[in-house]
């Protein structure tokens, strides 16, 4: 066990701290209404656009660190410890994190790994700069957990892909310029072998986006309909019929990004403050032993997951360490734990905890309820908790697969 940083990293930590101080209270002129985004700061000092912020971070090497300069990144060596230091210090100082989202977290790594030169040059830079928003067109009405059952059809006609069908649950489709999409291009092939990974401009003729309001009462996702949508033949990542493998690479990236460990620590600290301030029958909640016990209980779980994140980090730095199952549990544990934490805050506040929108007596802009519900979405999205348990038990523990129903593919 050695948790010390060498001088290089201690210096780097200082540098990041200084950066955070310089930009203390930075706000965005184009901030979204999403309570998750607007929580970061109350003081108004430096004002920038989201995209300007991305560029500042890239210039410092605090974001897109290992992405080559020619594609709009910083062009440095990947450095896991530095990334960790950045995340920790930003989180501590409440400095706004770089933009995430499916384009940045999923598409960019995929293109870096499997994209053509032309695709890398065209898409990575604007995506990193927050100027090109992507959505993920995987799920369909009849293909959710069983994603490979998808039926949206792509035919190559006269050098163009012609796409027909429907996607659903497509997050941010209504704001997106592009979609990375799974489409069945080889109808004769076996289920998983008939899929291709296509890049579709959202302003193409024949695309209709219909927003779907989710339980938070925001339109977080959409239905997307395709009627004879035409895109160039070259807008494919990987080869025809290899889309499943390409998509699996990106799903791996998504699972890593759904439940960042620093965020939950901040929320736990917020909850502790809340319990010191909020009163029940005139007495601060922190002094009510039953609520206090629940707080301590979840603190124990969060501490375990924080330590576990360090172990996973260490395994990246020290290739001998075996954390196969340890990685597989992250999506399940991370999303469930966060949902539980937000739910505890609601219980602590009681009736106050169910106030919403712009109600009088509302606390913290209603963020506890919002995130509580939002994380139920994340428990379902990106592979449900049940699917995660299948993965852990089958691939992690080697338990036998469910026998296939006769006739099912």
């Amino acid at each position: 066990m050695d948790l010390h940083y060498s001088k290089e990293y201690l210096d780097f930590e200082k540098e990041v701290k200084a950066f955070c101080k310089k930009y203390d209270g930075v706000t965005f002129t184009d901030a979204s209404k999403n309570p998750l985004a607007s929580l970061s700061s109350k003081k108004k000092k430096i004002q920038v656009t989201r995209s300007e912020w991305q560029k500042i971070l890239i210039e410092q090497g605090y974001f897109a660190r290992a992405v080559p300069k020619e594609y709009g990144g910083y062009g440095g060596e990947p450095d896991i410890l530095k990334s960790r230091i950045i995340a920790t210090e930003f989180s501590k100082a409440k400095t706004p994190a770089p933009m995430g989202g499916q384009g940045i977290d999923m598409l960019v790594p995929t293109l870096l790994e499997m994209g053509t030169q032309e695709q890398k040059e065209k898409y990575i830079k604007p995506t990193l700069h927050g100027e090109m928003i992507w959505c993920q067109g995987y799920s369909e009405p009849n293909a959710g957990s069983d994603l490979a059952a998808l039926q949206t059809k792509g035919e190559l006609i006269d050098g163009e892909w012609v796409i027909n069908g429907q996607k659903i649950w497509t997050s941010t489709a209504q704001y997106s310029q592009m979609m990375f999409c799974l489409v069945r291009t080889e109808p004769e092939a076996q289920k998983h072998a008939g899929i291709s990974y296509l890049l579709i401009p959202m302003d193409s003729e024949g695309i209709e986006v219909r927003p779907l309001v989710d339980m938070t009462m925001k339109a977080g996702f959409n239905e997307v309909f395709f009627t004879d949508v035409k895109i160039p033949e070259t807008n494919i990542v990987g080869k025809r019929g290899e889309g499943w493998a390409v998509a699996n690479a990106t799903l791996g990236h998504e699972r890593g990004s759904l439940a960042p460990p620093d965020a939950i620590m901040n929320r736990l600290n917020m909850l502790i403050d809340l319990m010191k301030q909020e009163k029940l029958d005139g007495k601060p909640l922190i002094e009510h032993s039953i609520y206090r016990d629940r707080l301590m209980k979840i603190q124990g779980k969060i501490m375990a997951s924080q330590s576990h994140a360090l172990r996973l980090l260490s395994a990246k730095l020290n290739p001998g360490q075996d954390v196969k199952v340890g990685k597989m549990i992250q999506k399940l544990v991370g999303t469930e734990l966060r949902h539980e934490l937000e739910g505890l805050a609601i219980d602590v506040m009681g009736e106050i905890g169910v106030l919403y929108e712009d109600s009088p007596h509302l606390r913290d802009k209603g963020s506890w309820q919002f995130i509580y519900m939002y994380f139920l979405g994340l428990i379902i999205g990106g592979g449900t908790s049940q699917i995660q348990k299948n993965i852990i038990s089958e691939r992690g523990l080697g338990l036998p697969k469910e026998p296939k129903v006769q006739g099912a593919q």
Partner: protein
Amino acid sequence: MYFGLSEDQIFFQDNIKRFLEENSSVDILRKIAADDRTFAKDIHDGIVNLGINGLLVPEEFGGLGLDILFAAAISESLGYGAGATPFVGSYVMAPIAIIDGGSDKQKQNYLTNVASNEVKFGVGFSALTGARDDSEIQIKGNKISGRSLFVLDYEYATHFMISDINGCIGVIDAQANGIDLVELKTIDRTRNVCELILKNVDFEILEQTKNSKNTAEKVIDAGRIMLAADSLGAAQNMINKAVDYAKERKQFGRAIGSFQAVKHMCAEMVAELEPCYALIWHAAHAQKHMPNEARLMACQAKSHLSDVTKEVAKKSTEVHGGMGFTDLLGLHYWFKRIGLNRQLLGTPERVREEAALLQLN
């Protein structure tokens, strides 16, 4: 940066696991549970031969001079193999108390003998971690009276180390006048506990603990981490057994591990237990290197592991069906080990309350 056990630590763990695999089969555990203590003595001697008694004793006193993380790694492997040997009290809590709270003379006197295995401590701290049945300890000058319940590792003890409610710690000779030792029977027969009824017994107070609770707190923190690590090992063993069984046992013409209800129980156990490794290591590491967080992490490790492993003990038994409930399979020896660890040195609720108070003040 490296977060994990060292090669040495893993090597030591493997030695203990292998020894217990070879010498402590379920048949042997059954004999021990039926009060055939010669088998327990053999296991104890074998484990001592591997060097656990001098683990924490500084090298200048003839020990190995290792740290709490090392001890936690060993505790985990003892839990894994349900090792029927004193450990937490004799070889972790007692040496730490003397190292931290003893005078030079006391260190010289006791630590050297712990390292040479001539002195073995039974340890009674329940006055501090939760007094039951109105038990109480009074210290007057160099005499101690009262009752100490759930004294750990008493079986081979040549001395007892007792703390009163203020964290004043001292040593009594097991042969001294005025000691009435009452054996207690818990569900777990791999480690035995007793009650000491003391009447005006000669008591040698550890020098630095007369007016300070600090040493007692360190001792309890370390003890809690050991119990948590023991439960971690025991729970991992139970999961492994459940997963193996789920692959072999067939019902309705297929392995029960292909039923999702079973599969998901296994996945849930792993998802809960896996992060506990890191928590234990981190908490143990903190005892030496992160003084500000040491106490909180020890409390949280103890209470969190108590909860997670209780659930693992239940689910892994269920995976085995009726077989899980039998003495034939003997899964219950680990179930009971986890059950005892959970209550010793502070129940989860009590330990969480301590954790809360640490942060409020």
